[in-house]
């Protein structure tokens, strides 16, 4: 089976599991599986770019799935309200988070979209880290 087919099968399986959780009124399971569904769809997409807002939303889903780190948004030149119109390389934040999660990367991660400025900081173990100076 090709990687794309496997991705599709996994997404369909997670989607069905989430629907089953909803039907059975397992609300926490539905929320978890919905986060997994959104994350794997995003990860399987072939798009090259995403808005910072999309990437942050899926990063939030990854934090739900992984459970080993937390996300703190820094207020700066790019706040959450501006994240919908900034384009970044898709998965750049998430790949960094995956490295942090697996212990092969170092935090904090400073996201610098093309307008400049700190937008997001990740840390392991739920510890809030100071926002680096832009």
């Amino acid at each position, binding site marked *: 089976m090709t990687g794309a087919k496997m991705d599709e099968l996994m997404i369909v399986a997670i*989607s069905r599991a989430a629907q089953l959780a909803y*039907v059975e009124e397992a609300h926490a399971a539905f929320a978890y599986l919905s986060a997994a569904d959104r994350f794997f769809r995003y990860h399987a997409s072939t798009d090259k770019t995403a808005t910072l807002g999309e990437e942050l939303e899926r990063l939030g889903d990854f934090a739900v799935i992984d459970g080993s780190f937390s996300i703190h948004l820094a207020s700066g030149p790019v706040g959450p309200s501006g994240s919908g119109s900034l384009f970044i390389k898709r998965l750049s934040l998430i790949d960094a988070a995956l490295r942090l999660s697996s212990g092969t990367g170092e935090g904090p991660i400073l996201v610098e979209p093309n307008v400049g400025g700190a937008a997001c900081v990740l840390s392991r173990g739920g510890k809030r880290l100071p926002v680096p100076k832009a």
Partner: protein
Amino acid sequence: MTAMASVLIVDDEELSRIAVRKLLSRLFPDTLVAGEAENGRVAVALALSLRPDIVLMDIRIPAMNGIDAAVAILDALPSTRIVVVSAYDSFGFAQRAINIGVSGYLLKPVSEADFAAVFGKALAEVQARIGVAQEQAVAPGPTAPAGKRDAIERAIASLSLRELGLERLADVLDMNPQHLSRLFKELFGIRFVEYSTGLRIDAAKAALTDQDITVEELCRRLGWTDSAHFTKVFKERTGLTPKAYARQIGGNGP
């Protein structure tokens, strides 16, 4: 509203049909599930016989895919609202769905929040149309202006400012645009374009009080294509440019 909106559920997976029925019973208990279909051909046949107000349509279904089934249903029943409920989020599917005029696109697994927003919008359009039809049936002509005015206001409330226009409103109300234009002037005392401009300016003023927003973003949200024209109209109505208005009220606007 006195008539109950009817719904046709089209999905080849029983689990998905059960999930949709559960969403309807929890969030929209006043709707009636008129029927269910497991494939596209049965969906079209059932739609033609049941004449549902809203069809919740999966895309990848046997016999005839959901897009083709939706086209067939809309050709025969143009006032029916189609909401796509699919596990596939490809741009191609979404683009085709938009092009044929579906009312909304929901991705499985569907959250209650998303279902409430998308199905609720389609339902509001149906309710507005039913309201006008009932008014016309009970009291044809301009003998029941309050009811017609209420129905038009409900239809306007069901649309976002970005999509609000005479043609779209006429579509929601299942009326001829020219007839609606005359009726609107008769009931409201002003032309529709003046009324909708007033709504947009009010929304712009509200956005400028508490949001960090540019004129371009404001125009995009309000469905205004020309920011220079927006600034001119805003000034005509308020005596200030958007920037000056934001400064005067102490907001952080453009």
